Structures are given as C-alpha cells and as structure tokens.
C-alpha cells in the first residue's frame, strides 16, 4: 500500500465535518454515532488510479471492459474508475449499476424487507470482461449475489472484482482481483463509503460501531 495516506494524516480536510472537540480522524455520522475515517478522498483517488493501471495491465483486451457498480458505494467509485481508464488508456468503458438485493441469500430470514436500489445496465454484457465494483467487501455474499444477478443479463467472457476496502471475514470462496486497501476490522463494526458533507463530491470510507452490536472493544472514540 505504498502511497496510501494514514488514516489521520488528512484529518484537517474534514475539520468542518467533525464535531467540536473531536479528536483528529473522528467525525460524527448523520446518525450521531462516532465515525472514524479509514480512507479519505485523496487516498481513494490514489487507490483507484493504481487499480485502473492494474486493470489495463492485466486485461488482454481492455476494449471489452465493462464496469458494473454495486449500489450504493460502488456507483461513485465505478464512475471515477471509468474516468481514470479514459485518462490512462484512452478507453471508453460502459458503466452499469446492478442492485443485488433481490438476489441476497438472507432476504427471507430477516423480518423487514430491505429497500431496493436502482439497476441500470446500458448494454448487453455478453462477451465483455465485467469488473464488479464495490466499496467494501467482507463476507463475499454480496459479490456472490452480484454474480448471480449478472448472469441474468447474459454471459460475460470473464468477471473480476474491485473492492476498495477488503475487510476479511470471508464466508464464501470469493477472491477480490483488485484491492484498494486491506483493512482488518472488527466484524461488529460497519464500514462504508460516503460523500463528505459539503465536500463537493469528495468521498471517504468511514467505520462506525454497528447499531445494536454489544459495544465492540474497538468501537470507542478514543481508539487510535
């Protein structure tokens, strides 16, 4: 991970978003829970540029690439990745959005049905090299659902996965082809991408203690 900033070095850029008196690297999420920034906008940018280079290097026929974002976190990342691919290799890559909710394996074991998100696939995926883009990969179940959903849209030549954050805790044999950052976290924490408030489209990856989780030892504000 050379070139990746440490989590607190860029804290001043988020000062406006932080609660008064908050320690550097700590912001208050919309739900009021303490949220720690794991990766800021500059770090995300650097990771995506590197991943774009890796994709071009490893793909024999980059003109067949097709990015598919998993909402919500994957959408802004896929958009940036498509821009990077255009700047780096002059590639015009289609970007689709694929909601995996209806393919989840836990839908009927929980009480309330989760809200659906949009699916927009601009063209057929047949014979394309599809790169799924997600913000955070943990158990691998979302990627499994995304692969099933993708097959309903055709027969891609190959499917690869970009995960900006790989948390570990895999429950299925799913491999991430392009990882932004490996970040071991407590399974009870929640890690996700969000747009910085009034940040002009700036993104950040934050971690919060899961609501209802029995106070994980790493969840406090004072955590280094």
């Amino acid at each position, binding site marked *: 991970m050379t070139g990746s900033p440490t989590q607190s070095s860029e804290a001043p850029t988020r000062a406006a978003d932080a609660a008064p008196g908050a320690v550097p690297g700590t912001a208050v999420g919309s739900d009021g829970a303490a949220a720690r920034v794991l990766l800021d906008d500059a770090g995300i940018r650097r990771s995506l540029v590197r991943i774009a280079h890796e994709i071009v290097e490893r793909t024999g026929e980059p003109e067949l690439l097709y990015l598919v974002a998993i909402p919500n976190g994957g959408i802004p990342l896929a958009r940036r990745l498509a821009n990077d691919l255009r700047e780096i290799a002059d590639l015009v890559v289609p970007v689709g959005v694929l*909601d995996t909710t*209806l*393919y989840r394996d*836990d*839908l*009927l*074991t*929980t*009480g*309330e*049905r989760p*809200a*659906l*998100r*949009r*699916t*927009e696939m601009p063209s057929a995926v047949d014979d394309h090299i599809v790169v799924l883009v997600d913000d955070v990969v943990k158990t691998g179940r979302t990627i499994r659902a995304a692969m*099933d*959903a993708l097959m*309903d*849209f*055709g027969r891609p030549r190959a499917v690869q996965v970009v995960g900006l954050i790989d948390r570990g805790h895999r429950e299925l044999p799913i491999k991430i082809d392009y990882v932004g950052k490996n970040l071991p976290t407590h399974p009870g924490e929640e890690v996700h991408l969000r747009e910085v408030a009034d940040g002009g489209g700036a993104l950040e990856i934050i971690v919060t203690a899961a609501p209802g989780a029995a106070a994980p030892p790493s969840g406090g504000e004072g955590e280094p």
Partner: protein
Amino acid sequence: MIGRDLLGIEDLDRDEIERILDTAGHMCEIGTRDVKKVPTLRGRTIINLFFEASTRTRASFEIAGKRLSADVINFSPSSSSLKKAESILDTAKTLDAMDPDAVVVRHGVAGVPRRIADVLDAPVINAGDGAHEHPTQALLDCFTVRQVKGRIDGLTVTIVGDILHSRVARSNIHVFRKLGAEVRVAAPPTMIPADIEPTFGVKAFTSLRESLEGTDVVMALRIQNERLEGAFFPSVREYSATFGSDRAKLQYAKEDAIVMHPGPINRGVELSHDLADHRPSVILDQVRNGVALRMAVLYLFAGRPRAAAVAGGTG
C-alpha cells in the same frame, strides 16, 4: 413498518404507500430484461384464492409471483358451493395447512379477506372484496399517475362512474387523498353515496363538465352490469351521453390531463373508442405497471419467516 396483511388502503399511511410505490419503480426494470425473473421468492408458495371471476387481476398476480420465482397456485372454488362464511373459512384453513407464504384473496362480499386473515398464519393480500377495497388496483393507478406526472401532491383526480358499487373508487379515493391529491367524484346522484363528502373528503359532482374543470387525471370506472340490481340510470345510452368520456368532453379538463380505466372497458359506454386506445389514455401503462406493483407487494408482504425460521436464522 409494513403490516402482515394488505387488506385495504385505509390501513396504510403515506410512508407505507410510498414505500410500495418506490419498490414497484425498481421492479419495473425486471420487466425490461430478457430474463424476466429474479430468485427472491424461490421455494415459496403463493395461493391465488379467487371466489369471484377474474382474469386480469389473477393473471397479474400470477405473473408477478412467477417473476419473483414463487410457485403460484390458482384456486377458484365455484361460488355455488361456497355461499356460507363458514365454509369459506374452512377452505382457507385447508389451504393454510399447505403452508403458503401468501394468500391472495378475491371475494364478492366485503370483509371476507379480513375474516380469512384472522384465521390464517399466512399473510393475506386483498385482490378485491365486494364494494369495499381493491388496494393493488389503486396502488398501480397511483403508481401510473406518479410515473406520468412525476408527483401526486397537488393534482386533481376525478373519478367518474358508479362510485356506490366500486371498490376501485373507494381504494383510489384513499390512496390519492393520502398522497395529497384533491379527489372529485362524478356520477348520476343514484350512484354516489349520500355521505361521501364528509366521510371520504371528496367533492361530489353530478355534472361531468363541472367535475372535469382543472382536472389532471380522469379515471373512468366500469359500469358493472353484474352488480347493478335495479335502475340507477335511465339507459346505457343516456349514461354514455352524460357521463361517458370522449375527446370533446376532455376539453374541459387540463390540457395535459390523462385518462385511466381499471378495465375491462365497456367501449362506447364509459370511454369512446378513440379515447380508449390512444393518448392521453394510459390504460395499457396501468396493466403493465400492475405486474411491477404486485411484484412489489409480494416482495414486501409474502414470505414472512415462520417463528422457527427466525430463531434459526443468523441474518
């Protein structure tokens, strides 16, 4: 947030209605795919329990269930053998023993779906009960208006026809009022319940022309000859002349007004031919949206986990 059963719009609040409509919006995309099927309700069973004849609503629920990968069983007891409420409940209990994940009920008598819901473990979805409610029809009508107009708030919706006997009218009055529209009804006085204005918060008109002024949505109801015992209007021809909609009468409504009909249409009675088949009619949009809307309803209501399944699940 959403209850176990969908028995009527009257029981829903604005948030619940909007959640169903938003879900239906996403379900529309599945209808545009080559493979129009998602695995959401795989291994689940939906029973269509229709005591009253229905082609369109039943087919719509059946397609909706199948697009979600549920097994859909159609059960249509002949009405002659099931005239007593007692035996209706027996039928329902028998079906319940087959462990369905949802039972979609239509019956000619108001309140039967609620009685069935009282004795069943499975969620019950009302597909029309007497002159009471037809919630999925009203939701798909509302969804279609929102799709075309972009909003419901502040619109004026005029429902024309047999308000007295119409479950579609009743459910639509509830759904459009809850989402902030002004609702008017227009019909011969014999077909408007006397207390409709205070009870339902609508404006009643006995002149079609007056009711259409400033209207965004004209919803024509079917003259249900099978429900009309007695003389509610002098003749079909006279009804058509005074309350049938055609392009000339539509001039009184807003320039961009749309025309709806729950179907099946009595052509030349409620709607003229040219109005039934062309814009501003959105009748076929209503049918298409009906499948997506019912997929949303089945997604949100069907397949509740049994108590044991909840205990065993890990989330």
